[in-house]
């Protein structure tokens, strides 16, 4: 799966589960730009796992600040 497909999946999660109506781009920051509070960050993590059938642990999640960071982690997990 390429980055574009992963981005499309994340955008879909944001639309369906987080009510995000704008365009999702890799440079968007989860907290500052998507305005996700702790409950919604958790929802994003869980729904991304469901969609891509991956499991992210705390070490994977540390340092994720942008949509692009999340894409990179998902890509690595799918490949693993």
């Amino acid at each position, binding site marked *: 799966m390429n980055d574009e497909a992963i981005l499309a999946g994340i955008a879909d999660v944001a639309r369906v589960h987080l009510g995000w109506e704008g365009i999702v781009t890799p440079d968007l920051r989860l907290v*500052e730009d998507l305005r996700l*509070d*702790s409950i919604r960050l958790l*929802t994003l993590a869980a729904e991304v796992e469901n969609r891509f059938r991956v499991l992210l642990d*705390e*070490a994977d*999640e540390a340092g994720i600040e942008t949509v692009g960071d999340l894409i990179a982690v998902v890509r690595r997990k799918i490949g693993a």
Partner: protein
Amino acid sequence: MPEEGILDWLERAGRRPSRPEGGLRFVDRAERATWFGWAEVRDRALAACGGMQALGIERGDRVALVFPTGIDFFAAFFGALLAGAVPVPLYPPSRLGRMEEYLCRTARMLERSGARLVLADSRLRRILGEAVEEVHPALGCRTVDDLPQGSAWPVRTGPSDLALIQFSSGTTVDPKPVALSHRAVAAQTEILTGFFPDTPELRQSCVSWLPLYHDMGLIGCVFPALARDAALTLLGPELFVARPALWLRAISRYRATISPAPNFAYELCLTRVSDADLEGVDLSDWRTALNGAESISPAVLRAFCARFARWGFRPEAMTPVYGLSEAALAVTFSDFDRPFRVTRFDREGLAREARARESADGREIVSVGRPVPGFRLRIVDPAGHDLPAGAVGRILIQGPSLMDGYLGDPEATARALRDGWLDTGDLGFLREGDLYLTGRAKDAVILRGRNYAPEEIERATEGVPGVRAGCAVAASWLPEDAPGEVLALFVEASRQATAEELAALPDACREAVLGTTGLAVEHLEVLAPGTLPRTSSGKLRRGETLRLYLAGELAVPDPAKSLRLTGALA
């Protein structure tokens, strides 16, 4: 006085073969269940106890626990108790949250608890490194599996020994470690089990997604199940938040009679559970849906009952309750088998006269019921004098499960506990014996069942360009018709702030709070310097700030007055 305690229940569970239905069931995200009878839980706890003793854990030592919901938490928790030690459950990091903030908070809590040992899940252990290094607990940080092998020598603790330390609001600024004795925990458990007797026709069982570092999850669900040798089905809190339907499906599947949650959980079900998620679900066995730990919205209660009636949910199951970790949990319960009670009270009377007068078009407040057995309640004025029914005042409580105090903080303990009465810091009134909550006298922000110290939220605004240093107030309250409490932030702009800084200030403050605390600010007010009310010694008055804001009176003080004040201080 309870005759038995946690260790007696645990011993009994291991001595005679556990009833086949007594134990812990963990449900994962694919809804697969793993079952551990109480006897097996005890065996694992004994092994952990032996390991901790081989390391050098002794009676009275504090052992911090950082685990997701799972069997290892219980091995560590009961193992520490068997060794005579005092478990201190701490929360694991929230997903995708800022790790530095989490580590900083955890280090403060480890420090305050004086933990000699930290036990953690293997994944969390790697992350905790930094916090642990900073505090340097004598026996380090380990997983349950890498404890040394050793024979367990269970220690007989007495009723006055500490059984548990819970952080009522775990923060960097003002951590409040609530110390509970074995006596208090046993008394609270006895109160709770008294409400849910088993009969030949009915075996009570509970489903919970509540965190185990929170009183409602640990004391409210785990101890009664152990004491009654009953089944408890657990889901991780992160699983519930991501997929609230799993909670309702577990209640249906395991035919739970009891399941508690804070108001926000019922609201989350309304917004995030679809009809398709509930195919085949039957909620008719759910007799008691306890609702506590935060302000309760009448609108959410009604909507939940209406929406889930189709799946057999009974409106009389919805049971508003009131409690706090300083009382080990429950203080008042609404009657069972009766629909919840909502009454309207005159707004002006509540806001200006501290009187509750019924009024057909007034503000709706949910009754949280009457004191549970053994508890007494007083409503007092600021001078400590008892108030009559219908007058709003501070709620003081007395009962068999009050905390010993805040660990290592005699001053805070003396403020909270006086002559055997606990000042809850909550405001309310009595009407026909029922308690109604109207607000808080204490500085606490309570959102989604969790307490936050306002200082922590306010501190996030430090360094935001244009904010006057030390001049921010955070507060939360339940607006009428809102589904839950909302967070407000009041910040004074600095006199030197440029027009650009002022324009960017609201967004910058929201981002700063969201980034460091994970909380979304609902109302943000930028104020002129000198607007926030202060005490004569210059401390911010948070309760007064909120009161003025809600009354539409939060404005710059009269210059003549502030001059006089300056003069008086000089």
